[in-house]
């Protein structure tokens, strides 16, 4: 199958990212001649094991961890489940979890299904967010209890890009002797993450969000943290996660992290500027458009905008005609019948939630692409508004 990558204007990087050509090159030997099993005795496998070790070192370096604190998983979702279920098993008397109302389904649905999964009753506190998507630290402080097994709060929100005060929240949890997990899937590679300076116990990472392939994730487990494996089986990952390593993707992820150490600067300058230009342009040229999420405390690549009186899927399909790729928080695109739980938690009215579009950029986007999108969007929105029974021409 061939995909016409050249003609696509890809602005959906929070959904997934392009695998860097350098990463592909780094992976190729492990998809061709270097196919040994890293656990094997013979050199043919052993040398592959060294490549995995080197990748682990690069990943640890990016996030300020020690190599022994890194285990490889299949994805961010597996890392999330591993951390939370481990805490519950390590402290079987504690049945309380503190999380937020805007977590990714990987955390949200896990917490909601814990009772059925484990056969025990749990208490889940979901911290509220304000209309700018931020948390209330007093509410958080009051929620922590003797019964709390773990706190799980995402570092940066996938829909709005809003960043949570992880350093402070982790410290507050530590002061109470409570484990702290953060789903940092959207943050790693976009903003600096330095675990040496934080009291975070568990951190989830996902390869395909930072230009590595899909199918590989990382769970950081702070040295000394009580840990119960999720996937048991072989002795891989020091007995912490069974299963033959996804060698090629792990090596790819290592390369991607090496590149990210250099490109984080670019994300926060050039890419942020492109995002700002896009956002500014859309908000000024299109009437009745509003930004969802805090303007300052958010990822440099994300903008989530609601266009009132029109619907998200319809907008995306018109954009699709111009090969512009983005995503939406509308009900029709969510797979269920309800609009994004994140926007609803922020109190975004239904009238706006259904017409929300998320643009998430990367280092691969250009200014010409931004200009093209700014050229096409006003027409798309106005032609859909002409169809809408709610839009009255001023």
């Amino acid at each position, binding site marked *: 199958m061939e995909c016409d990558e050249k003609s696509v204007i890809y602005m959906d990087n929070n959904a997934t990212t392009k695998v860097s050509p350098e990463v592909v090159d780094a992976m190729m030997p492990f998809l061709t001649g270097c196919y040994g099993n890293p656990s094997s005795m013979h050199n043919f496998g052993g040398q592959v094991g060294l490549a995995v070790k080197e990748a682990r070192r690069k990943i640890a370096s990016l996030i300020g961890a020690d190599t022994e604190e890194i285990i490889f998983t299949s994805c961010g979702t597996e890392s999330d489940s591993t951390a939370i279920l481990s805490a519950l098993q390590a402290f079987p008397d504690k049945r309380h979890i503190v999380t937020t109302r805007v977590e990714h389904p990987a955390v949200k649905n896990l917490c909601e299904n814990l009772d059925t999964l484990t056969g025990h009753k749990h208490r889940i506190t979901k911290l509220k967010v304000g209309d700018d998507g931020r948390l209330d630290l007093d509410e958080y402080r009051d929620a922590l209890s003797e019964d709390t097994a773990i706190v799980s709060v995402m570092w940066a929100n996938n829909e709005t890009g809003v960043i949570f005060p992880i350093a402070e929240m982790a410290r507050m949890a530590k002061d109470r002797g409570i484990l702290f997990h953060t789903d940092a899937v959207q943050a790693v590679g976009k903003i600096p993450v330095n675990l040496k300076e934080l009291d975070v116990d568990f951190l989830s990472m996902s390869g395909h969000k930072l230009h590595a392939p899909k199918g590989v994730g990382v769970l950081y487990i702070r040295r000394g943290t009580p840990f119960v494996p999720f996937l048991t089986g072989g002795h891989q990952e020091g007995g912490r996660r069974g299963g033959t390593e996804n060698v090629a993707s792990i090596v790819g992820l290592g390369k991607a992290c090496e590149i990210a150490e250099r490109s984080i600067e670019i994300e926060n300058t050039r890419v942020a500027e492109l995002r700002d230009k896009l956002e500014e342009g859309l908000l000024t040229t299109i009437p009745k458009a509003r930004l969802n999420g805090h303007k300052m405390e958010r990822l440099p690549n994300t903008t989530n905008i609601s266009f009132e009186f029109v*619907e998200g899927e*319809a907008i995306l399909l018109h954009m699709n*005609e111009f090969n512009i790729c983005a995503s939406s928080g509308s009900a*029709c695109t969510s797979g269920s*019948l309800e609009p994004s739980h994140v926007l609803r938690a922020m109190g975004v009215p239904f009238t706006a939630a259904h017409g929300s579009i998320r643009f998430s950029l990367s280092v691969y986007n250009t200014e010409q692409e931004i200009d093209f999108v700014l050229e096409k969007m006003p027409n798309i929105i106005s032609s859909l508004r002409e169809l*809408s029974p*709610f839009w009255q021409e001023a």
Partner: protein
Amino acid sequence: MWEYTDKVQQHFLHPLNVGEIENPEGTGEVGSLACGDALKLTLRINEDEVITDAKFKTFGCASAIASSSVLTELIKGMKVSDAAKVTNEDIAEALGGLPKEKMHCSVMGREALEAAIADYRGVILPMAEGEVVCECFGVTDLEVIRAVKESDLKSVEEITNFTKAGGGCGKCEDKLRELLREAHSGTGIAEMIKPVEKQAKMTVLQKIKKIEEVLEREVKPALRKDGGDIELVDVDGDFVMVSLRGSCKSCAKSQMTLKEYVEKKLREQVLETLIVEEAK
């Protein structure tokens, strides 16, 4: 991610009959911004009761827009009495089919048409008499029953696909199941739709008592007729340990008795996961 037919794409990208008729003979407005779907249909009807023109305005996804567009094309030139017979299936068919999760968009088209015709005739919609069962999406029991009957729906999931009911908080699921049975009753399909019986978890004591009851009442008398007997030895989880006595003990068919008769009876009357074994 939805697989849309060429016709849906065509009607979505280049919709027909967009707008509002001035001083229309009939207006139908359904849905809302909150729902994520809304349609305003206006009709021009002449003295011969023929719909000479129809226009629409829609807030919604590609399926909603396409459904509205194709609907107006279908009814233009129809007599009102014929238009009243147009169903959501007709709309979906005219589009070459819709993904099942989007069928409710075609239902919305039909509802707008109905509302417009009722407006023209000056009558209150019979559907308006219904009682809301799904609070998230404001769906009434009459709407659910009609969808079930007309589109031959066989599950709560299908009801959600066609009406959105049950797609939000899920609290109305039991009521929907009830309506599903009601709608099908009398056609024999009611047999197939069994309510999900939430088996209350029995304590071990309750389980033992029930097992003893069934053994006393039914199993023992039957075995005793043939000179045999049975005794309950122990209950461990789903395992029921029994001891066969009298002629049963030496009977070649004892295993068959245990499984085909005793286990079957206990599964029927106590708990369907029980396993009967002979105590060693």
